[in-house]
């Protein structure tokens, strides 16, 4: 992975920058010792590592603003960081950057059930947002699988999704407002407890901007009352085509499950060996979950099962207890762990039009043979967001590169059939250089022009999202 050469001027003034930062933050909030900065050298894309110049852990919006003013003044790049669970290298530092972590900002600032929102500091983890309102029957809908660890800050920056986004949408659909600090240290409120923007939808462009437009310190999030109940059903089919057709028929029939998850044979086998969930031995498996009262669930499942039966499933498994429901979900929830048990893996995240599912799975199978690397598919079928998991051996020279080339081919395939490079994990450094496959030069230029407006010096998370070649003139001009 190419990264720009660290700015020698910045490296040379580390001492001065750190001492300026110490003037505005408590002693334990500035980490400059080389052994300690290692804790921030990577995110969940662990193949790439680089310790930062220093890391800071401010405790308030004002402290964030003070840090940014100094870095702006000194021309030091800043990499915002939530919990560091990005799979795209979004929070990976560069050697000349300061990591600005919001991990100490975890307060709930306001809970309002009548108006259905919660306002939190963005270092708070996703799960603990729901945790704060759970006793009163409410929840925050977007639920990435990493929800125990990942922070709202990262969710907003990546516009993260979750298993239930088919019904509830992704982060951007549940985000009402933010407090943000721009690189020059200016604090601003965007959106709030009311709906939609009065002017341009700046909130819409901030969400998903991967930490490149500003540091988000507080967020107003929509909360909902929990449904009365939820129940999954599992179905097995003897081909990916048929499973894909079944998904399409259910959607067309006007039923909106909260989740439709898909696993293919390699993935089913791996999870069976690992979690022993008792999944059928078949080509493709669907887990479909619906919500409501018991009678509502029965009515929806009756429709879904009737559609499934027209596709000759090899297995239809209903649940009549929480234990049985948990068993249905068990294999799906341990899919990543199971694959990790076999080997190192790389998790992709392209989205395709659901109609292209059978074709894309067939092509992935062919590519897998060409590259000699196994791949398992587990994904959100209702919205076409795929997660092919490519297995490789990190200790075998050349295997990572081969895996990356295979991954790039799959993502290009997603674009080719009308989809995109990333459905929820973000571009980061991982997909940065593939952006030219999805966007023409002018399309990238207008996106970079947005960054020019928010961060004219290109100091926030500068080497991410855009191909280095495309962003080079701007980064150079800024230096």
């Amino acid at each position, binding site marked *: 992975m190419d990264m720009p050469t660290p700015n020698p001027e910045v490296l040379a003034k580390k001492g001065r920058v750190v001492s300026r930062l110490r003037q505005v933050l408590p002693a334990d909030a500035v980490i400059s010792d080389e052994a300690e900065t290692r804790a921030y050298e990577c995110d969940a894309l662990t193949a790439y590592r680089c310790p930062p110049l220093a890391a800071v852990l401010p405790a308030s919006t004002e402290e964030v603003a003070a840090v940014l003013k100094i870095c702006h003044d000194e021309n030091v790049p800043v990499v915002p960081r939530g919990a560091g669970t990005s799979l795209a290298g979004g929070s990976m530092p560069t050697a000349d950057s300061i990591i600005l972590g919001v991990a100490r900002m975890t307060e709930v600032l306001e809970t309002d059930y*009548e*108006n259905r929102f919660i306002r939190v500091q963005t270092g708070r983890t996703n799960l603990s947002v729901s945790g704060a309102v759970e006793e009163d029957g*409410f929840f925050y809908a977007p639920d990435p699988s990493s929800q125990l660890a990942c922070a709202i800050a990262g969710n907003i920056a990546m516009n993260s999704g979750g298993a239930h*986004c088919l019904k509830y949408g992704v982060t*951007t*659909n549940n985000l009402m407002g933010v407090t943000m600090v721009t690189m020059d240290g*200016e604090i*601003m409120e965007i959106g*709030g*407890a*009311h709906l*939609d923007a*009065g*002017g*341009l*939808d700046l909130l*819409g462009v901030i*969400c998903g*901007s991967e930490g490149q437009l500003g540091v988000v310190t507080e967020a107003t999030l929509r909360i909902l*009352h*929990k449904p009365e109940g939820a129940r999954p059903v599992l179905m097995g089919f003897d081909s990916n085509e048929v499973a894909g057709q079944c998904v*399409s028929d259910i*959607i*067309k*029939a*006007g039923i*909106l499950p909260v989740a439709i998850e898909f696993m293919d044979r390699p993935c089913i086998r791996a999870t069976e060996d690992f979690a022993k969930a008792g999944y059928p031995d078949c080509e493709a498996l669907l887990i479909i979950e619906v919500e*409501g*009262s018991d009678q*509502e669930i029965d*009515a*929806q499942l009756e429709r879904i099962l009737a559609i499934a039966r027209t596709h000759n499933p090899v297995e239809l498994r209903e649940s009549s207890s929480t234990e049985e429901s948990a068993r249905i979900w068990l294999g799906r929830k341990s899919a990543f762990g199971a694959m990790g048990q076999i080997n190192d893996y790389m998790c992709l995240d392209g*989205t*395709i*039009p659901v109609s292209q599912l059978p074709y894309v799975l067939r092509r992935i199978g062919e590519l897998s043979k060409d590259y000699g690397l196994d791949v398992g598919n587990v994904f959100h079928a209702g919205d*076409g*967001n795929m997660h092919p998991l490519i297995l490789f051996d990190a200790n075998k020279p050349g295997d990572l590169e081969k895996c990356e080339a295979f991954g790039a081919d799959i993502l290009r395939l997603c674009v080719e059939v*009308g989809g*995109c*490079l990333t*459905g*929820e*994990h973000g*571009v980061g450094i991982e*997909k940065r250089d593939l*952006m030219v496959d*999805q966007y*023409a030069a*002018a*399309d*990238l230029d*207008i*996106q970079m*022009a*947005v*960054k020019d*407006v*928010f961060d004219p010096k290109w100091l926030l998370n500068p080497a991410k*999202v*855009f191909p280095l070649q495309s962003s080079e003139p701007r980064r150079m001009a800024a230096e």
Partner: protein
Amino acid sequence: MMTPASEAETAEMVASTKSALLIQGGGTRNIGAQNIGTPFSTAALSGVRLYEPGALTIVAGAGTPMAEIEATLASESQRLAFEPVDHRGVLGTNGTPTIGGAVAANVSGPRRIQAGACRDSLLGVRFVDGAGRILKNGGRVMKNVTGYDLVKLMAGSWGTLGVLTEVSLKVQAIPEAAGTVTLRGLDATAATKAMSAALGSPYDVSGAAHLPVGKDGTAVTMIRVEGLETSVAYRTEKLKAMLASTGADIEITHDAATAAQAWAWVRDVTPFHNGAGDVWRISVKPTDGPQVVAAIEARAPGAQVIYDWGGGLIWVEVTADTDVRALVSQGHATLMRASDATKDRLGVFQPEPAPLAALSAGLRTKFDPRSILNPGLME
């Protein structure tokens, strides 16, 4: 009037124009003050380009009539989730509402509180910026975080950042049943409480509106649920029981035609059609609504209001030239209908706080360096 026949022609015309352009779809949502510039119509960029009912997606030229989109979707028992408003009645315009116009104005009806705004259904855009460049962002798939989300930025940008040429949208199936729980006689505060309770319930409410003066002259609060028949029957009964403590007279309607008419009445702001007063559209935190309205009534006696979105959206009809915006401290107010003089004096859009105004102005300069696309409309 310039009417390009293709995206390429749109780009050529924009690039070569020497004067400001007044971008319009069907011209039915023309809320700008001066309306300066040469009319520039997207009407010929029309037609459904791709429709995949099984993937819940439709792609269409920006100038495609709304009616055509709706008919295409209805043929597969589908619809646009955000329940777009038809502005002709309230704004006194005629013309053919287009999908591009709905997107450019981020127009969302009662279902906004459940299914999201127009911007939440929008998957991708193609547009021509003020320099005449053909650009795209997003795509036609449901989940897409590839690069910055300019799709959201274009929704609600009222043609000031670019001329939309093509949009792709997520659609939804028309549920088999809908039911409305109607409460009569509540004042605004009690109605807001009732709507909050309903929206804070597990019953997945898809509409919550309050008319202080309903069709029959009494106050009416309406709460809608949609879904399978069994579900709607169950949920409306649950809501009725839950709201019994309001003391209001409560009734449940399952008749589809009556319900559709009642909700269209709210959606299209029918009570204010053909009126003489100014019309404001205000977005607030729902529980702030009644106080905001009380302040408006104190300043302009006789003001008429409609609450939608559980009280979060307030339509107001007031005596001409009343500065309603000054009475809204949190949220925003748009002056939808007024004389040009009033629009000039009060501004159509809510002024943004200085740091946001600077960002918005910066974006406009990048997207429209010559300031030719609906200049001044949003400022």
